[in-house]
């Protein structure tokens, strides 16, 4: 296992499809050339009766519903970057051999681990819209031949038996060479390599020797290695500009997949995502998301981005988008034996983000009391990762029933007899007061906006204990004691 070749057949077609949701299932062909000379270069399996090399007019006649599209260079660049990022997860020594094809040097790699990684790679690439095939062999050529017929992974161990039945075209002979070899009755690589190399050289010249070497899978070359990406950014344009969430999310998913692959290939994860939307009115909407837990999982990114985008309203259509991931090393930690951390931190923080979007930013969190005697003063803060040990209970345990607040308080009209509440009327009921306890005077902030209230606890004749507040502005029911 020295080399692996990752290949995507009909690369332009798949690159175009993964960039446009409407083309996912329709009969599709990639055209080449213009006007009367236009021919079909690549064709999807749905276009029944159409073959590569066919004139466009014939293709349209044979498959009336066919969609004909030229190549999309931007989509191909993106797909190629995704393929290279996937290859970089197998080994850091990768060559971008051609469009939709890359070669990986696997020298020194653990065969068992690499085999598992390759299966994972093929599965994930297929999920990302690129059905890849992988050929593995001792030379680049053998790996390349294997990639052409792999379904989807072929590891060549017996080279002679593998090469023998392959058609001669695999070794890429010239037209003249094909003519000569066919006249000799040679149609396969095995038939060619059965002949002595020197004899072939005498009859077909240097080209013949090169052809024989290619047929034997022996032709060696040095890989032109690529540099792994240093920044993790995706940028794309919308033509025409988009107004709704669906097309925005489709491309966002595709480009995020590539950025995530690049991060994984570098052994990194994203700690922050910055999303910038450029609008048609030349303004921009930028938002940075700190991920609850650093991750290179696209699903987790998209949950955060989707939640935010659902709440975004812009004055103009979106023309261009930039998604940038701030990389960091993956978090490695071991919880203590008695730690009560989160079982699934990612879900926990994602759900909090969703709740924030649902009920409002200031309405979800862990309550923390503000150091004041003023009633109902607290803030909601980010919950702690792990719950600290509880402090001993207070010396004076709380007494009486517990307050449930009415927010806002119910305005009440109270009849006072001897400065004690006797009857109450509020929007929800009117009743006599059986018992009243109080008052408790509390006040504060005399240096700023002084406040002063008088608290009573009242029990109604028809049951129910309530907290009554009396201020200089009148009375109100603050809550029920339950």
């Amino acid at each position, binding site marked *: 296992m020295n080399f692996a070749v990752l290949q995507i057949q009909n690369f332009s077609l798949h690159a175009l499809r993964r960039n446009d949701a409407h083309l996912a299932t329709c009969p599709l062909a990639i055209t080449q050339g213009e006007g009367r000379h236009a021919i079909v270069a690549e064709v999807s399996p749905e276009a029944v009766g159409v073959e590569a090399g066919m004139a466009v007019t014939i293709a349209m006649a044979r498959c009336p519903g066919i969609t004909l599209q030229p190549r999309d260079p931007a989509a191909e660049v993106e797909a190629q970057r995704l393929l290279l990022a996937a290859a970089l997860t197998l080994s850091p020594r990768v060559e971008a051999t051609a469009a939709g094809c890359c070669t990986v040097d696997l020298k020194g790699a653990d065969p068992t681990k690499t085999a598992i990684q390759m299966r994972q790679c093929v599965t994930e690439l297929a999920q990302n819209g690129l059905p890849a095939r992988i050929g593995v062999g001792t030379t680049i050529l053998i790996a390349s031949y294997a990639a052409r017929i792999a379904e989807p992974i072929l590891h060549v161990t017996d080279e002679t038996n593998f090469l023998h039945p392959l058609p001669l075209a695999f070794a890429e002979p010239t037209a003249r060479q094909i003519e000569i070899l066919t006249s000799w009755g040679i149609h396969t690589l095995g038939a060619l390599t059965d002949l002595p190399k020197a004899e072939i050289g005498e009859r077909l010249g240097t080209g013949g020797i090169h052809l024989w070497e290619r047929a034997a899978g022996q032709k060696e070359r040095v890989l032109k290695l690529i540099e792994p990406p240093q920044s993790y950014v995706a940028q794309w344009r919308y033509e025409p500009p988009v107004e709704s969430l669906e097309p925005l999310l489709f491309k966002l998913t595709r480009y995020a997949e590539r950025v995530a692959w690049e991060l994984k290939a570098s052994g990194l994860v994203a700690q922050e995502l910055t999303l910038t939307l450029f609008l048609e009115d030349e303004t921009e909407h930028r938002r940075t998301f700190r991920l609850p837990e650093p991750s290179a999982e696209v699903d987790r990114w998209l949950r955060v981005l989707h939640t935010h985008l659902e709440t975004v309203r812009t004055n103009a259509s979106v023309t261009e988008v930039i998604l940038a991931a701030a990389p960091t090393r993956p978090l490695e930690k071991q919880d203590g034996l008695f730690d009560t951390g989160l079982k699934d931190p990612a879900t926990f923080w994602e759900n909090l983000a969703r709740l924030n979007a649902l009920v409002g930013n200031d309405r979800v969190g*862990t309550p923390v009391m503000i150091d004041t005697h003023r009633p109902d003063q607290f803030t909601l803060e980010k919950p702690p990762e792990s719950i600290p040990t509880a402090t001993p209970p207070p010396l004076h345990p*709380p007494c009486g029933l517990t307050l449930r607040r009415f927010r806002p308080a119910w305005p009440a009209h109270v009849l006072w007899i001897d400065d004690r509440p006797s009857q109450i009327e509020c929007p929800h009921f009117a009743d006599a007061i059986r018992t009243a306890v109080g008052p408790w005077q509390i006040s504060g902030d005399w240096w700023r906006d002084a406040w002063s209230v008088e608290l009573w606890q009242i029990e109604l004749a028809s049951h129910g204990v309530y907290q009554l507040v009396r201020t200089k502005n009148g009375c109100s029911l603050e809550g029920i004691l339950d």
Partner: protein
Amino acid sequence: MSATPTTLTALRSLLAARFPEKPRKPQGHVPSGVTAIDQLLGGGLPIGQLTELVSQAPSSGGQLILNRLLLATRQARQRVALIDGADAFAPETLPADALHHLIWVRCRTTTEAFAAADLLVRDGNYAVVALDLRGLLEKRLRQQPAATWYRLQRAADESPSAFLVLTPCPLVPAVPWRLVLQTPLSLVTHHTPQEEIAAQLTVELIRGHAHAAKEELAG
């Protein structure tokens, strides 16, 4: 190279086919901090099930039970989510230290409360998810389609959390456990420690597996 994984996969498939395993349901209880409730429910709020606590009378101790639950889970360092349908929870009624484990969701409407419950019941990070629907319009609560409750029950089945629903009247169809507070408390308890009040609460089990078993025995 692929012989070992293939053999292993085949072996696993064979074992799975010959010895099909019933999916494991979360089990156990979360002590509620109120002895009467723990006794009725067989040890506390059942994990993976809905428990409905109906406060049929005003000032019948529903909020006191919730606060006791918060104190008990705080001692055990278990996380609790409180979906506060009417935004009525008063954090100052608990010591500041007893709030570290609480996630409080302050809703404004019934829709928000049910949407939040739907998210949190699937979360898996909470020992208890409490949905407090008291204070919301009873008419709106009764308009909730039964499917909403069944959906929550199905989600709770798979969840490692106990799901407590506090309601002003019996609402949850086919709920496994329904406890009812019918006795209103009075201002006499004004100086009584809350622990003592909680110990004296009259809680009635109207619906539940334990109740059914007891009736069977009596029959």
